[in-house]
């Protein structure tokens, strides 16, 4: 039973580490701001969930499990909030996603 839990949590944590690494690579390599935000969101959902789940299997029924659950709930609540605030601030300051100029022109012609 102990080795089965170890194996499952190893697989979960390694997959989470892979998600996190892919997201970090995307943040470095993607061409512009909004695609980089898309890459960063991979680490905040897949990476975070898998890593914390793998650690929770190691924690067992203890206080550490409660703290891990608090970290999970808090980060799942705050990372969309900060992503929204970032995108909102960037849009207000005049950043546009690539290809959005055509949409703006079409909207102006339509109205």
């Amino acid at each position, binding site marked *: 039973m102990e080795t089965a839990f170890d194996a499952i949590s190893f697989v979960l944590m390694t997959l989470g580490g892979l998600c996190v690494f892919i997201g970090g690579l995307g943040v470095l390599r993607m061409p512009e701001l909004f695609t980089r935000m898309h890459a960063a969101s991979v*680490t905040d959902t897949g990476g975070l969930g898998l890593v914390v789940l793998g650690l929770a299997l190691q924690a067992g029924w203890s206080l*550490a499990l409660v*703290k891990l659950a608090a970290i999970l709930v808090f*980060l799942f609540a*705050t990372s969309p*909030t*900060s992503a929204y605030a*970032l995108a909102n601030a960037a849009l207000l300051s005049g950043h546009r996603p690539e290809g959005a100029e055509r949409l703006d022109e079409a909207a102006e012609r339509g109205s």
Partner: protein
Amino acid sequence: MIYLPVVLALLVTMGLALARALLGPSLYDRVLAMNLFGTKTVLFLAAVAFLSGRPDFLDLALAYALINFIGVMAVLQFFQSRELRRQYETPRGER
């Protein structure tokens, strides 16, 4: 040593986020990179807590998550209001 791959991946990702924060052409790229660095630090602290067998480190991870969120929101609020004030003060033709 089942924690080694995840700890290595988190460390490498923190390095990639720092590279983006140093390179980032715009201000918002840097804010995004520092936000990513902060959340990866939280996960790294949680993994190190189990790696070293000291679950007390989870308190540090939780406190770091709170501070990181407040810091990012404060920085974004500051720059957003500065940008709006600048757009209000300059006449429309000059932008």
